[in-house]
């Protein structure tokens, strides 16, 4: 009896969803499914990454992503080290490489990196032999967030192909938006964005994305809304008049949702600014999948770690053989 390994290649690193094939993205989502069950067990641990050392290198503050990765790593049996240098002025260049080379000298296997500079993950991936997973780099990509968003939508609506997904809010500063656009478009979903013109990147239509100027129109159109946080820490002055004004014009409120013809699924990558981009009644309401997103985040990250950790040349061929 032989189990055929599905044909998809992830390579050494996961830097972004741009350029990944539909087979690969679907393959990661399918691999995540059985990992959900492990987190429901009394003993939430399997030994598959036993003896692997993983460094979580977080140059930017993060609660959800870092803890989610750490849970994923520990539940797969890996040893983890967390390095955070929030507040330090580490910039892309020698320092990042030197840090990584020093870690390598201590014999590590994987690095999860979050960095304020776009391209930091790819820069690191090109320079060290360890597997590199992008935990968010500047305004470039945040692939595991988009994967967990897609898994959550697929759980709720049964598919992604042909669905209409609108990303609302601060698109210009958002690596989550970019990763979602690449992933969803590749899997055949229609993607739109909605927000103040000052927060929509120029030329975004070239990614195959349409634009809504009014949040009411976006809600009317979409099967699912991915509501983004206003990234006030990345904004210079002048992007929006005020938070109150933003909520009045673009806030996702219960009154606006009730006018829609369908039960729109509501996502938010967190952390939420309640009363700004999303109202509490919506965030805690029946259409919200915000907490299932967090649960799925652990499963998706387990799948990515699992797939990258064993990706040795010749592995695919050997995996077709069955031991009994």
């Amino acid at each position: 009896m032989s189990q055929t390994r599905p044909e998809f290649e992830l390579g050494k690193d996961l830097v972004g969803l741009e350029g990944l094939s539909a087979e690969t993205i679907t393959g990661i989502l399918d691999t995540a499914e059985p990992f959900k069950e492990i987190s429901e067990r009394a003993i939430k641990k399997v030994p598959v990454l036993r003896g692997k050392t993983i460094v979580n290198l977080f140059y930017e503050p993060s609660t959800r992503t870092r803890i989610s990765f750490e849970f994923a790593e520990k539940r797969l049996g890996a040893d983890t080290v967390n390095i955070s240098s929030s507040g330090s002025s580490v910039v892309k260049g020698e320092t990042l490489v030197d840090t990584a080379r020093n870690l390598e000298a201590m014999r590590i296997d994987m690095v999860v990196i979050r960095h304020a500079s776009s391209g930091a993950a790819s820069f690191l991936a090109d320079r060290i032999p360890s597997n590199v997973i992008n935990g968010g780099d500047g305004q470039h990509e945040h692939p595991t967030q988009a994967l967990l968003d897609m898994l959550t939508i697929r759980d709720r609506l049964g598919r992604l192909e042909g669905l209409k997904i609108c990303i609302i809010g601060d698109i210009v500063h958002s690596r989550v938006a970019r990763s979602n656009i690449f992933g969803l478009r590749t899997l055949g979903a229609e993607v739109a964005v909605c927000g103040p013109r000052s927060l929509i990147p120029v030329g975004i239509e070239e990614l195959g994305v349409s634009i809504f100027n009014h949040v009411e129109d976006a809600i009317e159109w979409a099967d699912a809304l991915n509501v983004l946080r206003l990234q006030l820490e990345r904004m210079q002055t002048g992007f929006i008049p005020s938070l109150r004004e933003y909520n009045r014009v673009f806030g996702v409120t219960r009154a606006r949702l009730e006018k829609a013809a369908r039960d729109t699924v509501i996502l938010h990558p967190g952390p939420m600014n309640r009363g700004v981009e999303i109202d509490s009644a919506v965030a805690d309401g029946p259409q919200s999948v915000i907490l299932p997103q967090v649960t799925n985040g652990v499963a998706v990250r387990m799948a990515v770690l699992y797939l990258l950790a064993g990706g040795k040349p010749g592995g695919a061929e050997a995996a077709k053989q069955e031991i009994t």
Partner: protein
Amino acid sequence: MSTPDMKTLLLDGPGVEQALSRMAREIMDDGVIEDLMLVGIHRRGVELAERIAALISETAGRQIKTGSLDITLYRDDFDQIGPRPVIGSTAIPGDINGLRVVIVDDVLYTGRTVKAALTELADFGRPRRVELCVLADRGGRELPIQADHVGIAVEVGEGERVEVRVPELDDELSVTLVSSSESE
């Protein structure tokens, strides 16, 4: 340059049914079934466990609990073969502490799968007793593991392998000896 596989039918559908009935009877004779749970190893072990459980349920007039284990994440050869993207589901219904658990698999060969299954089972609790039931025992053990209930013992030569087929996955119920010129 592969030549076609040579196939020898060891058990046909009725033959497999008979072997399963005998093993079901053995499991009932060997101990109490009030706290029995049959746990199949993914994939074909799951189907065989369901069949044996149905046979015992029918005779005993009580529902026998079943579960499934996928041992992919417990294999000892992850570093050699790398990940398998599609992992089956592990589903152990309820608490296994103090139960009589019978692990069911299609073919017993090196014993490494069973060892992995025992390790995984231990992460769910501490059964009162664990037994092993296999449809075909083909020898070639690499670990000190033996089955308690065996459907058919098969002599297997160089380049030969035992194939179990179940209707849910392969459209038929059978045990076949396959000789192949290609390495396994």
